[in-house]
């Protein structure tokens, strides 16, 4: 198919418009993953360690939120950020920041739920040792997060995969504005609607290559780290 070749060629030859799209996709999704990690990892760790009434219900809800439909998240963030909505004065709708917010909402439950599982498993293993060493609550959380860091990379990758692949949320809150909020996935949706299926497929292949590359990078880092720290 000539289309695939042309999309790949555009990337390889450094077509500025396409590179800007790729760059924005990465910036938005990586920023969302970083923010979601800052929220989701402490939340997941706290949920793993703190016993309180209703904890099981929170876990069930959190696990269910991993499957939040992007379009619903997009709509909710849209309504919040719209000028007529509660956060309208921020003026963020149809900006990359709105896309980051939407993807953060989408990804944070994934990272929190996977963190909760990972930390809880590790806590079962470490509990007696840490208690025997008289480690306080803050030290416990820090130790468990640090020692689970390689598993948590997997949680971050799951979040990144979700963010990079979704179109439903960012097309609503970003508006797919040429040169401003157009990402790989919204561009694919657009080219499909224009009937340029070969170009859409080509863009899709570029997206897949990027996602694989990010995963390979993280996997390599994880392996290297594990060799050093077990």
């Amino acid at each position, binding site marked *: 198919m000539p289309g695939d070749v042309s999309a790949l060629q555009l990337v390889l030859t450094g077509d500025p418009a396409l590179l800007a799209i790729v760059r924005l996709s990465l910036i938005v999704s990586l920023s969302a993953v970083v923010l979601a990690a800052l929220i989701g990892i402490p939340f997941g760790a706290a949920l793993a360690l703190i016993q309180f009434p209703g904890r099981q219900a929170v876990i069930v809800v959190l696990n269910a939120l991993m499957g939040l439909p992007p379009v619903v998240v997009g709509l909710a963030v849209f309504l919040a950020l719209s000028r*007529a909505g509660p956060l309208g004065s921020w003026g963020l709708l*149809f900006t990359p920041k709105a896309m980051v917010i939407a993807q953060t909402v989408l990804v944070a439950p994934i990272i929190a739920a996977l963190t909760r599982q990972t930390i809880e498993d590790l806590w079962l293993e470490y509990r007696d040792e840490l208690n025997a060493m008289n480690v306080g609550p803050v030290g416990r959380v820090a130790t468990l997060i640090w020692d689970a860091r390689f598993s948590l990379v997997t949680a971050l990758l799951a979040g990144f995969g979700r963010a990079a692949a979704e179109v439903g949320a960012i097309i609503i809150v970003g508006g797919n504005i040429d040169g*401003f909020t157009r990402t790989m996935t919204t561009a694919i949706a657009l080219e499909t609607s224009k*009937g340029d299926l070969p170009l859409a497929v080509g863009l899709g292949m570029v997206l897949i290559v990027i996602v694989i590359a990010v995963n390979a990078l993280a996997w390599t*880092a994880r392996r290297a780290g594990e060799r050093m720290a077990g």
Partner: protein
Amino acid sequence: MFTRRLLMAIAVSAVFAGSAFAQDKSILVASTTSTQDSGLFGHLLPMFKDKTGIDVKVVAQGTGQAIDTGRRGDADVLFVHAKAAEEKFLSEGFGVKRYPVMYNDFVLVGPKSDPAGIKGSKDIVAAFKTLKDKGIDFISRGDKSGTHQAELNLWKVAGIDIATDKGPWYKEIGQGMGAALNTAAASNAYVLTDRATWLSFKNKGELVIEVEGDKRLFNQYGVMLVNPAKHPNVKQEFGQQFIDWLVSSEGQKAIADFKINGEQLFYPNASDPGA
């Protein structure tokens, strides 16, 4: 430590992202898929930017959604094609003034084999009646867009109450023009489309134009500034500059000059007060 370096890089990229988000002299225009997908904006906006330095960001939506975007105050300017809905928007006080800009036309496309036997007709209403009588597959946008509203209007003119008379042949997909064309191409159905999207559409398959040239297929575009009295965030000055340029002789000529394969897509008519 590898991971730490990786996380650091991600964090740094997140910080730098802030600068990529910085914006200056720009307006947001809510418009329709036809103006965007045909490439009209790609043709007009660089000229306007050269002249004024204003960046125009276009959110391409169906006309219904675009008008709702304006109603919420999320856009500065509306550039759409559904006169009745636009006038309602004005009368509710959400817009300042409507300026006619240009028109293009709708065409009825369908499979080359033409199972309805309407090819070459200049009477769109008769063609619609035939489709309904023979129960020929028809794809409707079903998304309250300008094209969808034009289609509904044609059914009404044909004396058909489509809400009650529709059968399994009438498929509402609730999506944009491109998706409707893709669906029609994949299922050999008929579909009403604006000519601009049709000409630039690349996945035509077996589809050809069946009916065109009926005056009732003309499609008028208007442009409006969202009322700053309702939404103080509206960039009144830049938005009005864009509108003024579109209806100026320079803007009108730029619209007339836009062609695909030598074919003119939009016909400027800002000087026609009835449009």
